[in-house]
């Protein structure tokens, strides 16, 4: 209760000590320890003084504003706060449970250097001081630079600190090979599609005008299982308001359970469905003619283009009845422009993803909802100047979730990134930075920084990645937990958790753009350091000190905030500074401005640029590869209580959901002889076997696919709660289909067999594992 385990241990150790030293004292302390049945319960954390510190959450990347409640020097609770537009006083389960990570005894505690003479993956480390660890890194980096050039160091980053390790430091060092998995393994195609259609990104936060819409069509969009706080609030409020919901998904998802119509679409055929909707909207003249006339380019070509895509044609492909397809299109039109097909977040499915997202945007355009109430709103990040520092030698290249970056300029002394030419877009693709480690083509990658990127739970072809890592001269992991990939690194730098550190300002593009601050609630535990500190110290050791002129983060943040007439103290008091947004066309037109950034200044239904590059200028349907007989398409998704593969050592969250299950359609399970709750293996054609994983035999999924929640199946013995529970979808993704436009890695063309009669691993309850973990 009022005493945590460590204090208790200390206490018992103290009593034992007293017993051996002085018998008298021990008798006294023993008496003290006899419980008094009349004494009240020890006070709860909230009974004493509770200090509140503003921050934003880090347990997923929605980054809700939180107030951190600290009692007795320990963070006890986090809550949303009303003035933050993302949390609005509420939080999802991951946010609520996040502080548990800070107190995880399995955390990385001090810098580690791989023992000389051991192989990567052996997991043998010696403790080092920060100075020694950073010197070690700098020395290796200079060697790489001398032999191969600075570009041969790749930088992967994900999380609030990725600004430093996937943008700023690579820019200062001079490597364009900086990438975020959140682009080519997640949102890349939708961003590219948006850029080439509207000349604007979608931003990390989907800019759907939920509060104004009356008709919502979700395609493979897992709201509810994907608990992005604000989105979930808006979704629930829209339903409460009476908005109609249609969900197309091969699986009866949580969102489908709330839908008026569920379309159990055949996996891989969503584009056909979207094209048929365009067909109905165009041929029945249900589209918003005035909107199309005013804002778009190439509509006449679309009219011709969609002629063959009749609902009957789509019904054959999607297995959704033509009447239903037609009815939904008409209902959308009836509610337009307050009818919307929100773009989903993880969109790297089948390799044709840019075109599918283009198709999705174009249906929205025909409904006339882009830039109109009830559709997609416009948003920009609030402007705050950078800290005055010299220009970086190379423009930061990993981009945001927005992913769009610029090519290395022709007159630059630096080589272009290793993935240039593999696809059309200008983002960097994290999975394409792996092969040059092995092949040396177009030039070798010899060094790698992984800041919070789980190399083995995000990038497909895990075995290939492992082979590639073995070829590196330097591999540095900056993380909080001893994930499997972390224990492959040459140098492990333990980062302080989000509750223990400052981070850069959160400049959020939103309907009401806002600035949020992160303030440390407690001192960093153990010998851990914030990302900004690691970057600055390393920068200085690399001779890049001029790019880090700030004293510390307080100086950095205060200087930046003063450029907008605020300061650090004000942000500390308020947590969030909210700005006025310009969500609709009308907000721009009032000032004779055009929010569209395409070369034509219009919404490009027909893309000249795609045509010039040899791609379909308007989306077409390409059949996807089908599973061979006896195999199922491997679909994956989210648990509401987990984020990626990051939260699986969090005792509180694992206590909620401690292993993933594979969903198998009832009839298929009967055929396979698998009963609900049985354990099975999943096996792919490359011979990868995952599991044992529990079977969930259910009516909620089509017969041609199976589904598991992403992020389980850790093979990291030092993560004592996560290790060995469930199955990893990433491990089973032995191939991917590269989207030739965006560079996204289509992950859903992986097929698995279900092998019955796996042994029951008899996972102990999480509470037993927690009890067994003595603090290290």
């Amino acid at each position, binding site marked *: 209760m009022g005493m945590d385990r460590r204090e208790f241990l200390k206490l018992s150790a103290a009593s034992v000590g007293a017993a051996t030293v002085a018998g008298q004292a021990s008798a006294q302390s023993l008496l003290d320890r006899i*419980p*008094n*049945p009349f004494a009240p319960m020890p006070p709860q954390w909230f009974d004493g003084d509770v200090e509140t510190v503003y921050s934003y959450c880090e347990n997923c990347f929605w980054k809700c504003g939180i107030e951190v409640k600290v009692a007795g020097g320990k963070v006890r609770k986090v809550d949303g706060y009303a003035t933050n537009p993302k949390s609005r006083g509420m939080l999802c389960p991951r946010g609520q449970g996040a502080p548990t990570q800070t107190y995880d005894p399995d955390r990385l505690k001090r810098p580690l250097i791989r023992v000389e003479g051991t192989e990567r993956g052996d997991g043998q480390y010696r403790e080092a001081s920060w100075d020694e660890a950073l010197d070690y890194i700098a020395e290796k980096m200079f060697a790489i630079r001398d032999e191969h050039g600075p570009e041969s160091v790749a930088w992967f980053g994900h999380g609030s600190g990725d600004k430093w390790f996937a943008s700023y430091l690579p820019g200062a060092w001079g490597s364009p090979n900086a990438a975020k998995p959140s682009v080519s393994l997640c949102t890349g195609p939708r961003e590219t599609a948006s850029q080439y259609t509207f000349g604007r990104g979608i931003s990390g936060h989907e800019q759907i005008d939920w509060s104004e819409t009356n008709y919502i069509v979700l395609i493979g969009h897992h709201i509810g299982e994907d608990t992005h706080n604000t989105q979930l609030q808006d979704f629930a409020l829209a339903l409460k308001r009476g908005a109609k919901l249609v969900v197309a998904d091969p699986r009866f998802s949580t969102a489908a359970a709330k839908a008026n119509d569920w379309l159990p679409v055949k996996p891989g055929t969503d584009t056909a469905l979207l094209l048929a909707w365009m067909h109905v909207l165009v041929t029945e003249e249900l589209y918003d003619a005035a909107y199309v006339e005013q804002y778009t380019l190439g509509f006449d070509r679309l009219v011709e283009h969609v002629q063959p895509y009749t609902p009957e044609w789509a019904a054959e492909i999607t297995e959704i009845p033509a009447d239903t397809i037609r009815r939904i299109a008409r209902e959308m039109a009836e509610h337009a422009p307050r009818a919307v097909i929100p773009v989903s977040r993880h969109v790297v499915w089948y390799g044709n993803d840019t075109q599918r997202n283009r198709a999705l945007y174009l249906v929205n355009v025909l409904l006339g909802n882009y830039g109109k109430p009830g559709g997609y709103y416009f948003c920009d990040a609030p402007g705050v100047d950078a800290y005055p520092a010299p220009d970086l030698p190379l423009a930061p290249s990993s981009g945001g979730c927005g992913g769009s970056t610029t090519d290395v300029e022709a007159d630059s002394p630096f080589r272009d990134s290793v993935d240039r030419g593999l696809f059309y877009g200008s983002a960097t693709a994290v999975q394409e930075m792996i092969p040059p480690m092995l092949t040396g083509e177009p030039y070798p990658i010899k060094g790698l920084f992984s800041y919070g990127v789980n190399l083995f739970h995000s990038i497909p072809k895990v075995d290939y990645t492992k082979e590639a890592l073995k070829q590196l001269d330097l591999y540095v992991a900056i993380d909080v937990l001893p994930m499997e990939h972390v224990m492959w690194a040459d140098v492990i730098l333990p980062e302080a958790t989000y509750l223990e550190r400052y981070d850069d300002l959160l400049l959020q593009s939103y309907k009401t753009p806002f600035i949020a601050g992160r303030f440390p609630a407690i001192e960093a535990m153990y010998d851990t350091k914030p990302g900004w500190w690691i970057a600055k110290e390393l920068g200085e050791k690399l001779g890049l000190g001029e790019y880090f002129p700030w004293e510390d983060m307080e100086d950095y943040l205060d200087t930046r905030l003063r450029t907008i007439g605020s300061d650090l103290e004000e942000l500390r008091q308020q947590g969030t500074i909210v700005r006025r947004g310009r969500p609709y066309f009308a907000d721009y037109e009032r000032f004779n401005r055009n929010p569209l950034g395409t070369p034509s200044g219009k919404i490009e239904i027909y893309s000249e640029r795609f045509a010039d590059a040899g791609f379909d200028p308007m989306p077409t349907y390409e059949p996807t590869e089908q599973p061979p007989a006896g195999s199922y398409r491997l679909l994956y998704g989210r648990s509401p*209580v987990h984020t990626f593969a990051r939260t699986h050592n969090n005792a509180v969250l694992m206590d*909620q959901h401690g292993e993933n299950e594979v969903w198998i359609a009832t009839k298929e399970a009967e055929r396979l002889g698998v009963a609900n709750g049985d354990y099975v293996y999943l096996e792919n054609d490359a011979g990868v076997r995952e599991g044992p994983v529990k079977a*969930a035999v259910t009516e909620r999924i089509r017969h041609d696919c199976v589904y598991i929640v992403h992020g389980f199946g850790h093979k990291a013995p030092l993560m004592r709660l996560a290790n060995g529970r469930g199955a990893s979808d990433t491990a089973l993704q032995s191939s991917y289909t590269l989207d030739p436009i965006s560079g996204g890695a289509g992950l859903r063309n992986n097929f698995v067999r279900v092998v019955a009669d796996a042994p029951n691993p008899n996972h102990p309850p999480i509470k037993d594992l927690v009890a067994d973990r003595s603090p290290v």
Partner: protein
Amino acid sequence: MVEWYGLPWSQHFWHWPTLFHFAFVALAGGMAFVTMVATLRDHPRKRTYALITMGLIVLDLFTLWVESPARWRFTHVWLFLAFTPTSPIWIGAWGLITSMVASFFVWLDRGPRQVWGALLVIGSSLALVYPGLALSVNVNRPIWSMILIVLFPLTGMVTVTALAMLFKQAWAKAFITPLSLASAGIGVLYLWGLATGVPEAQQGFAYLWSHGGPLFLVGLALLVAPAFLRRTPLLAALVPFVGATVVRSLIVEIGQHQFFGF
């Protein structure tokens, strides 16, 4: 399909030591009953019986203490500082403590015998009745039906009579068969009541049947056995003892299930 995030506390709340408690409390309550009769009739062995009663009560309370999650909190003192007559456990606690005090004076052979006897009437009946009562008040758990208020004292008396037989108490022989047969009869009635009752009871029957039905029938058969074992007192004592304990234990153990989604 049911998905859970977090779990309700649907696991068993009473574990195997509790079965010992239910066995010992039957012996303790039964022995208090025997002491009561002996005291009122001024039986020559009343002091011995009183001593055994105290021993059994101490053993039972010790079992309870060992299995209690609150054993190092010493909060059991609150049992005797509160007045909660609706609680079977409170009733049982007072029944046992009353039996303990009365037995103590009977053993000392001091004070008014009739008063100790009267106290033992109350104490022993409370101690005998309360286990069945503590189960049957839980209307949410259909396996613990109302009939246990009768079944538990009866089977409790079976065990103590069997014990008396083992120690060659002459009177016991006369009682073992009628008590065992009555227990078996009530046991059959109990099953019949579940099997033909409301849907919840029927579900309870099905669950009891699938989780220990045959063993339960064996228990009932063992209770019928003394009728055929009059020539072998040792068996005539042991067999119903086992039968009564099996029946009681199965009801306590399996009956913890409630039909709420698991």
